[in-house]
């Protein structure tokens, strides 16, 4: 067995999954009332759907998906801005593949712009975008920097390399988000009644376990940092049920093989060097203070918002309830467009595009298992 599989497989082990499922079932019988837990991270949403974990849980433990799919929470106006840049004759856009099919205003998308002849490249890493800038010095190469605390240090590292190389034609359009403000907003949302969070494992690698102390202190919700294998996720659910039963919310780190108390200081220093907090729009959650990151003024020459373009008034798709899905207020099938005009082949809302989007994950993995309502 390869060394990497030897590390991964034990966390998928069927005996452990079954024992944890039984443990969760037993713990659920002593709950005083039904509880609602939220997995915040889109990668968790995808992992939970792919393993069918939602249907292994007892009926009084509801697990809802949160706003942690970066593509899904990217608002229409960001995509409109990217499209306006793509229309410039001297601009090459570089983007993660997820963003290509996300609907902008008037059902336009990067994919459609690319078909019209715009110079748009799908990249795997911010470093690949840097490479495009190196090989095409006559083009302005703009990287669409969409992501949370996990991804933004990689963008900062690419910017540091661009500075070191004196690469003047590398720029970014920041659409980045940070996780604390929405966690606070969701914990306080009276419609949701959240009892606990499964915290995003890879954001936690960067910010560290101690970062979440505000949840215990200010929000009084149960919380556990968990990895992405079925054993990790079920351990997290059991831990949240324990905290809820005992009435003692805390933040438990159950992903200690990669998450430390202090997190990745090198990555945070790099992030801090290039970025500062700013108010930003979230699809579904609206404008949240200090929930985004923008380039610091001294890096203005790297900021694609300084390029002059005309921006149309943003237009949200009609009938789409991505917003309510992202808040965990409704499950995807409750949206009138779900599988009735909106599907992964022809997405209308952002949540149907990314494999991490709640609607796409539900459509692919849970539609038939769950029946209509759920």
């Amino acid at each position, binding site marked *: 067995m*390869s*060394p*990497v*599989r030897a*590390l*991964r497989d*034990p*966390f998928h*082990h*069927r*005996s*452990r999954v*079954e*024992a*944890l499922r039984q*443990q969760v079932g037993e713990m659920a019988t002593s709950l005083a009332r039904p509880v609602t837990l939220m997995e915040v*991270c*889109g*990668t968790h949403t995808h992992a939970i759907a792919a393993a069918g974990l939602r249907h292994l849980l007892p009926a009084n433990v509801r697990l809802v998906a949160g706003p*942690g*799919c*970066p*593509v899904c929470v990217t608002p229409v106006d960001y995509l409109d801005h990217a499209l306006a840049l793509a229309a410039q004759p001297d601009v090459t856009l570089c983007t*993660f593949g*997820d963003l290509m099919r996300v609907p902008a205003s008037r059902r336009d998308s990067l994919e459609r712009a690319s078909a019209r002849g715009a110079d748009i490249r799908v990249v*795997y*890493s*911010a*470093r*690949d975008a840097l490479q495009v800038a190196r090989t095409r010095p006559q083009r302005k190469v703009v990287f669409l920097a*969409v*992501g*949370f605390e*996990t*991804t933004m*240090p*990689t963008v900062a*590292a690419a910017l*540091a*390399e661009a500075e070191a190389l004196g690469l003047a034609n590398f720029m970014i359009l920041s659409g980045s988000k940070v996780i604390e403000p929405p966690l606070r907003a969701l914990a306080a949302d009276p419609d949701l009644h959240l009892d606990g969070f499964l915290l*995003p*494992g*890879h*954001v936690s*690698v*960067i910010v560290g376990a101690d970062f979440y102390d505000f949840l215990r202190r200010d929000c009084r919700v149960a919380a556990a940092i968990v990895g992405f294998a079925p*054993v990790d996720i079920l*351990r997290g659910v059991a831990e949240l049920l324990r905290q809820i039963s005992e009435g003692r919310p805390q933040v438990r780190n*159950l992903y*200690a*093989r*990669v*998450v430390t108390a202090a997190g*990745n200081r*090198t*990555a945070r220093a*790099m992030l801090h060097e290039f970025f500062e907090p700013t108010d930003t729009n979230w699809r579904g959650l609206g404008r949240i203070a200090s929930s985004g990151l923008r380039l610091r003024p001294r890096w203005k020459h790297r900021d694609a918002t300084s390029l002059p373009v005309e921006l149309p008034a943003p237009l949200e798709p009609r009938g789409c309830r991505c917003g309510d899905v992202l808040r965990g207020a409704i499950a995807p099938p409750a949206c009138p467009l779900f599988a009735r005009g909106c599907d992964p082949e022809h997405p209308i809302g952002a949540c149907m595009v*990314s494999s*991490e989007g709640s609607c796409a994950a539900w459509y692919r993995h849970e539609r038939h298992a769950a029946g209509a309502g759920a």
Partner: protein
Amino acid sequence: MCLALPMHLTARREFEGDAELGGVRRTISLLLCPEANVGDHVLVHAGYAIARIDRAEAEATLALLDATLGVDPDVVPEPAHGAQARRP
């Protein structure tokens, strides 16, 4: 999109490294994880190592879990919810 994969670091050149997963090799950046050494397992996100994986911690987690739940990892239950068990 916060997907990150464990990879095995097989070579290092200053702030770049070669990493391997299931026969696939990639050049990755070590700018965000300068403490990584050849032989380490690192967590890779979008072309950058973002953490070393603590293998001893992973083993301790599993040992504690098995002790708490009474799981024998050598016994694998049948798919129908563990009615029968067999030795692999």
